[in-house]
């Protein structure tokens, strides 16, 4: 579970700390000198090589490719189904999990092969309002045009 973002102003807040909002929303990871990149949760040392003090922030590409997906038909109350969940590989060599939008989930089930390696790009949208009234912004992936 992602830790909640810290308040900076009265504006919208990111759903997860590794989503950076502003004029050009993007994901920010932590990169180790060994090459491994982490998104969530924040590391105090590298999960891959164990080195401490080796992690630096890195801006990640908004474009990637779908590795695998599933179509969720049953979820918690209030979550609209069916929807597509996917693992997206980014060119930096790290993968991200999020929702796929602008695709027909039932069509994807019939032809899963068409979704593998599909080029996608990051979009953001307001997904909730928090207890203090701030808009909460999440990110999804949609097929690249």
């Amino acid at each position, binding site marked *: 579970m992602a830790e909640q973002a810290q308040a900076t102003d009265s504006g919208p807040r990111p759903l997860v700390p590794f989503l950076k909002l502003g004029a050009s929303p993007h994901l920010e990871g932590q990169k180790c000198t060994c090459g*491994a990149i982490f998104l969530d949760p924040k590391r105090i040392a590298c999960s891959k090589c164990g080195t401490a003090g080796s992690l630096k922030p890195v801006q990640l590409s908004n474009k990637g490719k779908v590795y695998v997906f599933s179509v969720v038909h049953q*979820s918690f109350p209030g979550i609209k189904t069916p929807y597509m969940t996917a*693992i997206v590989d980014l060119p930096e060599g790290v993968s991200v999990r999020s929702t796929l939008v602008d695709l027909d989930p039932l069509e994807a089930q019939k032809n899963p092969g068409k979704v593998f390696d599909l080029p996608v790009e990051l979009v953001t949208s307001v997904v909730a309002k*928090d207890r203090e009234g701030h808009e*909460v912004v*999440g990110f999804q992936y949609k097929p690249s045009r």
Partner: protein
Amino acid sequence: MRNVYVLGTGMVKFGRYPEKTVPELGGEAALIALKDAGIAIKDVEMFASGNLYQSNAMVGQRILQQIGQTGIPVINVANACATGSTAFREAFMAVASGMYDVTMAVGVEQMGKQGLLGGAGGGDPAYATEGKLGSGLMPAVFGQAGIEHMRKYGTKLEHFAKISVKSHKHATKNPFSQYRNEVSLEDVMNARMVAYPNTLYMCCPTGDGAAAAILCSEEKLKQFAGGRKRPKVAASVLTSDPYTDRDLTLPDVSTLTRRASKKAYEIAGVGAKDMALTELHDCFATAELVHYENLGLCGDGGAGEFIDKKGGMHPSLGGFSPVNVSGGLLSKGHPLGATGVANICEVVWHLTQDDRAKDRQVPNAKAGQAHVIGLGSACTIHVLTI
């Protein structure tokens, strides 16, 4: 390291017991195991208790309140779905090390009719990510594991569905199973989709249950077994997930299983071909399919063909390399903490030709294995031989 034997086993049928408490269920399984071993609680020198949902509530000690507070050391274990098998391993190590001669492991869980597992969290629900950032719920997580296999090897929905048909067929012969109904391939394929490609029958149920095992040294075996044959724990392996590239977004249940499997076969001095039966962690049909390859029951990419040739089916049904003849998690049920000990009970019963497996007895069972995955992740493999 000393040789360790399973002197007795006990299991409470998996199902729903809203009228009972967790310590009662665990205590019942323990009493059956003690009777089966031919000993009393006063003979037990150490006890490892596995339970997940009450892991902060001293379940082991409360079980002893039910069956006899002898003052022995008690360890309460939580390790996700590998909770029970990790407790078994603690009891195994306690004897293997030479510190104790007779130990007990109990796995117990009461889940009730709760819904989907995972994804929930504290704090402001506006920041809950489930459904907003894809899905971290188990059906989708394991659905993706199956889809990864489809992507690599062209595996079809039918392959996963056949696993569920097999599981249900096996379960009809197991009185300890939560579900004992047969389902057809059409039933499975046309059932409600939970998370593609897992339909309802390809997902294990929630439930309640308990299982227990008494372990002992060779010396105590001679004293208590009275000539009865009892299996040796030929290997007890526990691994966690090593760093792999996608593990944190797409939980990797394969790498740690492969590592555990290699080590278990090595230690036991046997191979996949020697396994008269395998009880593996089929929380979803997609999971069972990838573990055929992870445990070396077939080659990489060979799981689809293995299934088509009736691999994993009971020999009485024309199959070979039987997997989950108990009905597996899919039909027998998956009360989280109980699962790992129950799987070991199943293997023991086949190796000892116990009446409790009489309608589904695997012929000439000299060796078998029980595999469990706890997501997060932990993997245990126990190889038993007789």
